[in-house]
């Protein structure tokens, strides 16, 4: 018995020690933002795609940046574009060095660009990479990019989180970056100082930073694969911030619960991307445009926005938000109207019978919808849609699939309906539309059945290299109107990036891209 008491006392003492050390942690945390992510930062080589974008964005910078209004200067102070839109001359800042002491100049820019071009096939999704004719060092701080064709989104794409960001050439392996790099010396406000794979990474403020210094000393990126654990860690005060889009960091129910508790601050960005349902024009039933149009009227989007998304996202009247470039076209919104949907289906020959389902030539109006089973939100939305379609006599089968199987299906086109998410700003509309031309994308597969698919793809190709603004605007109008009229997409809602943080943490804002986190603007309120 005495032994037992001693053991018990020892355990209690140890627990006491542990709890004390925890309190110590809480005090130093003021200099450090602890951010929880379900994913490790992995390899943050800025020219590849396997690292977390938010981490890449902390360390590496681009010539220009995308803001809400326009593309603004960053590592390039200013630029000139030739009249034919084929030559871009950038005047670089002269006060920038990489964190390994290497000077940032036109030579470094060229070396980075060459490394990116050396791995062209990896960047096939990005038109700009394929359009670069040559890139030239004009003088130490002047750099020239020559294109094969004029390409209007050049500046936007140069400002993306990857791949056009700059790594110190000292970190290159054999003058390239395609097979890995030796280090991560960037020019950005943060330096990656510690990385314990699958556990945590520490970013320290770059004291030599050319721009505005980050407000805190460190960002600690903790990896917590389970969402519930992240919430409990927030409640305990072990982490300061949860940040993410599309339910990958925090689901909407928890977001609303935290909001109601009032113990934390919740923030939401402006609408960023579009959630939609693809209607496959290359399938027996949905190839009929009347059927596709009927489905547009059959879904009660407001209920989805309120019921599933807790009112955090607004109903999407058109595929792209009218705030996206070239997308304010005054297209007619199709509001929830089951009577009209039924009418259209009747006209298309699908008649309701006693069973409550529609038939045409003894064939039942049966459709299939696929979603990514890792995403609980998509499942609930699919169930809402199933219910709405049942109301007008359509039998919808919904199937959740693992991500890779879901992507396989996107590529094979074996779906009537499929869940789809646009790329979000600053990728919308140009990169998103550009991806419609690639057969591996569900968009392409869903559009194959359209009479004018060939024209559609050609027009998208042409509008990217159209140098005349008015002409380009007209082409966008044509493309987006055609897609709207053909009802290939049922727009649902516009998604937003969400953040939850402790009240002491201030300055939590959003970048244009949902994949970046502006840690450098965050700070703790002085007590």
């Amino acid at each position, binding site marked *: 018995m005495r032994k037992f008491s001693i053991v018990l006392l020892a355990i209690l003492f140890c627990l006491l020690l542990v*709890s004390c050390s*925890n309190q110590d942690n809480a005090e130093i945390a003021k200099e450090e933002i602890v951010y929880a992510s379900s994913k490790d930062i992995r390899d943050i080589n800025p020219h590849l795609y396997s690292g977390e974008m938010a981490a890449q964005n902390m360390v590496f910078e681009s010539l220009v940046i995308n803001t809400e209004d326009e593309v603004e200067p960053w590592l390039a102070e200013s630029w000139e574009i030739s009249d034919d839109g084929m030559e871009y001359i950038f005047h670089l800042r002269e006060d920038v060095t990489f964190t390994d002491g290497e000077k940032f100049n036109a030579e470094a820019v060229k070396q980075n660009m060459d490394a990116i071009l050396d791995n062209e096939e990896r960047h096939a999704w990005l038109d700009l990479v394929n359009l670069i004719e040559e890139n030239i060092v004009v003088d130490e701080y002047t750099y020239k990019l020559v294109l094969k064709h004029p390409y209007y989104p050049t500046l936007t794409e140069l400002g993306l989180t990857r791949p056009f960001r700059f790594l110190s050439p000292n970190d290159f392996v054999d003058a390239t970056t395609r097979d890995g790099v030796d280090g991560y010396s960037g020019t950005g406000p943060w330096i990656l100082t510690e990385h314990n794979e699958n556990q945590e990474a520490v970013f320290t403020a770059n004291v030599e930073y050319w721009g505005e210094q980050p407000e805190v000393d460190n960002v600690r990126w903790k990896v917590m*694969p389970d969402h519930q*654990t992240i919430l*409990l860690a927030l409640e305990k005060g072990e982490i300061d911030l949860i940040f993410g889009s599309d339910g990958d960091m925090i689901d909407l129910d928890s977001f609303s619960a935290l909001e109601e508790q009032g113990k934390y601050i919740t923030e939401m960005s402006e609408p960023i991307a579009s959630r939609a349902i693809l209607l496959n024009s290359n399938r027996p039933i949905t190839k009929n445009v009347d059927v596709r149009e009927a489905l547009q009227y059959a879904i009660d989007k407001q209920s989805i926005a309120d019921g599933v998304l807790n009112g955090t996202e607004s109903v999407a009247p058109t595929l792209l938000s009218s705030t996206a470039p070239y997308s304010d076209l005054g297209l007619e919104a199709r509001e929830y109207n089951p009577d009209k949907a039924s009418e259209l289906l009747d006209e298309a020959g699908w008649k309701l019978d006693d069973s409550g389902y529609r038939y045409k030539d003894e064939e039942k109006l049966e459709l299939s919808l696929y979603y990514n089973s890792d995403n609980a939100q998509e499942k609930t939305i699919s169930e809402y849609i199933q219910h709405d379609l049942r109301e007008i006599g359509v039998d919808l089968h919904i199937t959740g699939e693992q991500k*890779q*199987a879901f992507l*396989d299906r996107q590529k094979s086109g074996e779906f009537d309906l499929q869940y789809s998410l646009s790329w979000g700003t600053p990728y919308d509309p140009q990169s998103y539309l550009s991806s419609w031309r690639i057969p591996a994308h569900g968009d392409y597969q869903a559009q194959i059945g359209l009479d004018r698919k060939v024209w559609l793809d050609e027009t998208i190709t042409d509008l990217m290299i159209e140098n005349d603004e008015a002409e380009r605007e007209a082409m966008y109008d044509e493309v987006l109107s055609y897609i709207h009229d053909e009802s290939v997409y049922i727009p649902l809602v516009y998604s937003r990036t969400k953040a939850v943080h402790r009240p002491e943490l201030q300055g939590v804002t959003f970048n244009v891209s949902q994949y970046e986190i502006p840690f450098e603007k965050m700070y703790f309120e002085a007590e």
Partner: protein
Amino acid sequence: MKRYIIKRLLSVIPLLIGISFLAFILINLSESDPAEVALRVNEITPTDEAVAQMREELGLDKSFIERYLTWVTSSIKGDFGNSFINNKPVINEIVQALPATLLLALVSFIIIVVISVSASIICTIFEESWIDRTIRGLVFIGEAMPGYWIGLLLMWFFSIKLNLLPTSGMTSWASVILPGVTLALAYISTYVRLLRNNMVQNKSENFVLYAKARGMKKRIILKRIFKNSLQTTITALGMSIPKLIAGTVIVENIFAWPGIGRLSVAAIFNYDYPVIQAYVFLMAVLFVACNLLVDIVTAMLDPRMRKEV
């Protein structure tokens, strides 16, 4: 004895071949094309040319048997290929993650032994009393509750309400307590019941009666009963070692524990075939090895077992 061990060792060889074949074939049955997956997880658009190039790179253009043989021969040398996700050798990933899992399994094992032994002794002493029933009821509940839920409950209670332990991660030695307990809870019930029932049974054996008649102390009698009841429990415990190591998947995810369980879950979600294959194969080898070891130990303890082979 030597012959027995050699015989058992030889019988393992066809088993291992079978397992490796199964691990390989299961992955190949999956609908997704590994070449496409390898491209996609790196955000490369799987165009036809890119897929063809990747198929060649991964050796997928060769015949099934050829691929299997290549995989087996390199696996024996410890080369399980490179991960699709980060292109690092799979074996490095596993070696890096293994110590964390072993530590977790060890701590769980100790908790299992300590709690099972003490609980079953108490249950035997107070057989059929309210204490016995309460303990059995509690361990039963502990086992019946899903590990995922109980992990979160423990986390909520001990680290948030009482603020005694960190919620997750592997930051201090205290971090191992909650995942260790969560993992152990699922096993404790089995051993408490096993050991308690054996002890209760042994209580009515003749040797106990004689001991009582000789006027031996209660404590010594209990010790003898305990020793005599251990054999099946030890066998079962031996087999639970690989189960503990392979069973950390959920616990490691909840508690952000950087072990092989988490590695395998991430691999499964990303269809990282080389990692899944290696994990399945190594776990199977672990089970076979532990089984073999337990058999040999049992045979050493009990000569009757040797004849059955």
